[in-house]
């Protein structure tokens, strides 16, 4: 029997396109369970913390709890993939803001560009050949380096496996946007690629064995295929690091200055589903 689609009810993204390694949003991404928490917030007035569902973020419950004129900060952005890769920030001065002066931040979670960031408590450990990042962000600046999403320890190309998306001044994809595996690393050019802007964007990066396909707002923006070390195909990528959002806390910082609405990460090549996932995201955020 074919399920009947009920008007007004949308299947959550991860129910249609499962298998994500980590997924962060303030909207509900998985299951029909409205009781699932999506974010944990610290209110500055008394520093107490509370979990909130997507519905409670949207219907004003969160803002009411933070209180008129007060600020609220994200201490945990819950992973909705089911893998418990929650992104946390235990240091209060580094927690991104979600309520500013009693008003819900427009565009998601606001990173200050100084020291804000979120990361998983534990390392993500896996061996894989490809990955796909979907991210809805809006920057306040086009200058400076910004660590957007990263699963790789610090170190020169040729030394450490992982994935990274990092911006540099005026370029959406800095040279540290790379995939590195057992045989080598592929990245953007040293000069950088893509035109960085301050609009709200949906960026999709598909990390493959010999290139990274970088899409912006549904269209191919750049093909990153500079061999930074070794040879291609890059081979098995052995992950042994935390997932970092908005800053690389391993030690070289590079803080993102702007808002993040949603980040979804697959440890697979999602080329076949890319357009459909992007449509789902765009239907939610009306980006392009």
């Amino acid at each position, binding site marked *: 029997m074919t399920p009947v689609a009920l008007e007004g009810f949308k299947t959550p993204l991860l129910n249609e396109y499962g298998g994500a390694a980590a997924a962060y949003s303030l909207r509900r991404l998985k299951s029909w369970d409205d009781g699932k928490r999506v974010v*944990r917030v*610290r209110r500055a007035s*008394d*520093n*107490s*913390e509370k979990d909130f569902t997507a519905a409670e973020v949207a219907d004003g419950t969160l803002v009411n709890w933070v209180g008129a004129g007060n600020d609220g900060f994200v*201490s*945990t952005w819950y992973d909705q993939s089911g893998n418990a890769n929650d992104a*946390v*920030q*235990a*240091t*209060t*001065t*580094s*927690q991104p803001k979600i309520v500013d002066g009693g008003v819900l931040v427009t565009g998601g979670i606001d990173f200050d560009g*100084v*020291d804000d960031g979120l990361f998983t408590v534990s390392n993500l450990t896996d061996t894989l050949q490809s990955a796909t990042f979907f991210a809805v962000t809006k920057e306040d600046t086009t200058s400076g380096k910004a660590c957007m999403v990263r699963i*790789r320890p*610090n*170190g*020169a*190309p040729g030394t*450490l496996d992982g994935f*990274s998306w990092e911006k540099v001044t005026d370029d959406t994809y800095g*040279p*540290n946007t*790379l995939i590195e595996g057992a045989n080598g690393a592929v990245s953007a050019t040293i000069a950088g690629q893509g035109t960085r802007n301050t609009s709200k964007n949906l960026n999709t990066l598909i990390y493959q064995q010999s290139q990274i396909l970088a899409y912006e707002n549904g269209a191919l923006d750049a093909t990153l295929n500079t061999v930074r070390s070794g040879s291609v195909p890059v081979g098995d990528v052995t992950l042994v690091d935390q997932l970092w959002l908005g800053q690389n806390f391993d*030690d*070289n*910082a590079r803080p993102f200055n702007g808002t993040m609405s949603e980040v979804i990460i697959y440890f697979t090549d999602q080329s076949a589903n890319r357009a459909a996932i992007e449509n789902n995201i765009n239907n939610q955020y009306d980006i392009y």
Partner: protein
Amino acid sequence: MYLILSNPSVEYGQAISHELWMLARPRGISDGETSQFYCGVMSHPDGTQVAIGPIDSDQLVPVHAQADVPAFVALISEGVTAEEATAIESAITAAKGGGVNILQLVESSPSLSPNLITREQMEATGWFPTDEV
């Protein structure tokens, strides 16, 4: 501002940052909360220095009525004189139920104030590597 610590240990920096936050949210109250540290801890790539920060000039850290002030003061005592430790403990204790400006406390300590450093100074002196991936 950031404060370079007398002991170049990340663990020591984390302990100070944690005890600073315990002034606001003491053990028993903050149990189960994600927030556990007041500020960040960073180490110089050459391994010789550790700093905590940022410490905002206009931010008051709320001091809870149940704050264990002696525990915090004991932790920093190796970097200050006995007189400075007493003055810091008195200032924080007097602020229970209100707030204390950490930067002003540091600036008032002759042992600590020379170790304050700005973000720009840190960047200029190589605290944040620029060539690593």
